[in-house]
């Protein structure tokens, strides 16, 4: 295993320090925790937003802390959900007197640890609500009692809820905005090469020279299906077909898309998926109003990508287009 690290045990801690070192205008670290919070906290009386999860998904989640998105991001060890005391510290840091919304990706560990933290915060008198993102269509929710996973589409939820909170919506309204986004977002990913968790030192799986995994999550785990590698357009078509079917898209829908790199896939290649996504939308008669192209929620140095679609209506389109100023997502630059 070759990594740009010092001691494997210090990776998360040093990376958090590094984010603050790089983005002091955006981020502070809550002392003694793995929580990143806004350098310039939002005004009192606005709803706070907390998300987080295991590390290894950078820029998620610390990269989305800032104006118009999250107020605190809680980091666990690599691919390991954070512990309740850390989430509690995040809730406290995000609280500005109007309640806090937790945006949780649907994994057993995340859900349970955030749930315990929520109970703790409530017992301290902080109003906390939570939403669980489950955008991964690779997992057929009806088959498993755990439901579907949350993957890259979660960033759309951060953005929508963040914009609502920044505008002064109440806790109920912010939760409703998040739920409206969750209801309309679907994602699916694939991997052509695995990643190596620093503490484990071994790739999470091995693939033959002509094999890939379809339906992967974001924790280096194998997908729902192993299959021969396929051209980019074919992969995009398979995924877009699944997303579209699951969303029940009929002709002429308003959509936003995300083409998300898992870590090692060059932007050059991701762009080829973006091209196909627009071709697909055009041939299906949809209106593709935004494409987010880049690395939004990664799996360390896994090679592969995920595509997300979100069906828009006026309010959701508006929230996604609102200004945001965070380390990893900025829009709404003022031109002279």
């Amino acid at each position, binding site marked *: 295993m070759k990594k740009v690290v010092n001691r494997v045990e210090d990776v998360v801690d040093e990376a958090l320090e590094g984010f603050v070192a790089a983005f002091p205008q955006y981020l502070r670290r809550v002392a003694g925790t793995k929580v990143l919070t806004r350098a310039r906290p939002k005004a009192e009386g606005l709803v706070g937003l907390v998300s987080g999860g295991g590390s290894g998904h950078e820029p998620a989640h610390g990269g989305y802390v800032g104006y118009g998105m999250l107020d605190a991001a809680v980091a666990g060890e690599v691919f390991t959900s954070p512990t309740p005391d850390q989430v509690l510290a995040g809730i406290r840091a995000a609280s500005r007197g109007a309640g806090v919304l937790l945006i949780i990706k649907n994994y057993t560990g995340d859900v349970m*640890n955030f749930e315990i933290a929520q109970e703790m915060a409530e017992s301290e008198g902080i109003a906390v609500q939570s939403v669980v993102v489950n955008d991964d269509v690779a997992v057929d929710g009806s088959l498993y009692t755990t439901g579907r996973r949350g993957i890259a589409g979660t960033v759309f939820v951060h953005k929508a809820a963040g914009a609502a909170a920044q505008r002064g919506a109440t806790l109920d309204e912010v939760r409703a905005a998040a739920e409206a986004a969750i209801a309309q977002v679907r994602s699916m990913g694939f991997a052509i090469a695995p990643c190596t968790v620093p503490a484990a030192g071994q790739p999470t*799986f091995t693939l033959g020279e002509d094999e890939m995994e379809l339906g992967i999550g974001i924790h280096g785990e194998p997908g729902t299906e192993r299959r021969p590698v396929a051209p980019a357009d074919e992969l995009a078509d398979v995924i877009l077909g699944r997303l579209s079917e699951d969303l029940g898209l009929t002709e002429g829908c308003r959509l936003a898309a995300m083409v998300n790199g898992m870590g090692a896939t060059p932007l050059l290649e991701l762009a080829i998926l973006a091209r196909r996504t627009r071709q697909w939308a055009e041939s299906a008669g949809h209106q593709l109003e935004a494409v987010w192209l880049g690395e939004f929620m990664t799996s360390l140095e896994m090679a592969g990508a995920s595509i997300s679609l979100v069906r828009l209506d006026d309010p959701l389109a508006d929230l996604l287009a609102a200004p945001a100023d965070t380390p990893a997502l900025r829009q709404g630059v003022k031109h002279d």
Partner: protein
Amino acid sequence: MTSTQFRALWLEFHERVRVERDQLNRLDAAIGDADHGTNLDRGLQKVAACAADTTDHLAATCRQVGTVLLSTVGGASGALWGSALLRAAGALPDSDTCDTAAALAALGQGVSAIQARGHAELGDKTMLDVWLPSLEDLDRRLSAGAACGEAVAATAGRAAVLAQDTAPLQARRGRAAYLGPRSVGHVDPGSVSTALFWQALATVLARS
């Protein structure tokens, strides 16, 4: 059980997890995210460090272990082990020793907490597939009049088998559930670590 034994139990459990750490990670890599060994090892190392400088009674020690696990393990297993220990603490006395019945009750409470927190059932391919039948197994042996140490030793052996028996199951809870049919044929890592706990308990009881 005495509070000294209780502390020894966690040192012993840590030692076994430490040795099996990479193997637990490998099991988790096959159907999860390759961190189960690292997670437990990290938490138990902290527990062991704390255990060294505490002389608290049983309930307080158990609560401390729960708090430490909750705040250091992370992932599904951290929330579950933490919840279990915090609940079990409520069933233990504020004294240095307790009888077998109280210890059994605490164990039962802990396992209920795992069920309440994780909503898993028998056969879902989780640690409960070891916890539930092994608790029953121990109960049966004690009811049949076996000595405590011997009964636990036998149950620990059974737990190891139960852990291996998770292989043919299809996961319906936890991360492995996302693999659907592909989870079949792999042993559940949380079940293996649970079996290690039983072995640690048996070892500690055998010592005295």
